[in-house]
């Protein structure tokens, strides 16, 4: 960087005194190459400022939603914590009733607890007959009903006594 370029930077950055700036402008008039260099630097500066403005606006677009997300996450966490403590409180309040629950206060003997309400038909093989397994209303006794297509001996005897 030569002396003229340094001066150009100082001029553009406003670091010169009024007298120095006046003298530099007179020099620019006399030196078209320097003037052109100044104009080039001003164009670059304008471009940089424009980019910075766009980048700033874009940054604002990104920053605001991010901040909103952070705030939402914090609110959600607060709600969850409140909910968690509320559930814990309900469980703690339910303790007196859970102590009095019959199944806890007087546990049944294991066999009694496992006692089924009725006999269980686990398997029926009826061959080619139609089998029905059912329980009638008001009863717990299972019924296996098979259609008997065998001849009724007694009926046969009565029809054919000989």
């Amino acid at each position, binding site marked *: 960087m030569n002396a003229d370029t340094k001066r150009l930077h100082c001029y553009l950055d406003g670091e010169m005194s009024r007298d120095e700036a006046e003298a530099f402008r007179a020099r620019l008039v006399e030196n078209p190459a320097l003037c052109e260099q100044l104009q080039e630097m001003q164009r670059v500066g304008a471009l940089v400022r424009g980019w910075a403005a766009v980048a700033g606006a874009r940054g604002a677009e990104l920053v605001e939603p991010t901040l909103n997300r952070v705030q939402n996450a914090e609110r959600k966490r607060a709600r969850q914590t409140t909910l968690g403590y509320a*559930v*814990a409180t309900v469980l703690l309040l339910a303790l007196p009733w859970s*102590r009095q629950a019959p199944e806890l206060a007087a546990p049944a003997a294991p066999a009694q607890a496992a006692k089924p309400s*009725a006999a269980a038909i686990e398997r029926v093989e009826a061959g080619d007959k139609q089998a029905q397994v059912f329980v009638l209303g008001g009863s717990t006794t299972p019924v296996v009903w098979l259609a008997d297509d065998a001849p009724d001996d007694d009926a046969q005897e009565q029809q054919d006594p000989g």
Partner: protein
Amino acid sequence: MRQLLLALAIGASCPLAVSGTARAKPAHAASAAKPPADTPDKLETVVEVSVLHGTHEQREVDSRIGNMPELSQGPFAKYASYQLLSRSQLRLSRGGKRQLKLPNGRLLEARLEDILPDGSSRLVASINRPDANDFLPLLEVKARPGQSFIVAGQSYKRGILVLVFKVVR
């Protein structure tokens, strides 16, 4: 989220602790430690088999049958009266079987397959003519003492046979 889980864990652990305390009460500890009274290492089961005959004859229901509300419901209600033909007790050892001749000539065979840890018996029954599979090749039932099951539908003398099985012990 960590705070939520912590709070839930605190709440959930308290009832568990109390239920554990309740279960450990001395009054129940002894009974819980003992095996159930009706589940000894028994090797046999007694099954009572009542053979009923349902007919369309207008007669009183045999009082020896006892209280059987089923007989007035469903397909049983098609028959006007029921008479008790026989009542037998089959003593079954584990793996052993007993036979009972039915009035219609068929043979009821009952076998005690197993006695389960909860005291119930797994019974296997079949109803056939000798050396034939003509009616009920296989019926497998799990029942505890006091529980019953019914096998019905066999034709007999213009009516039906109703077999009532009851595990006595």
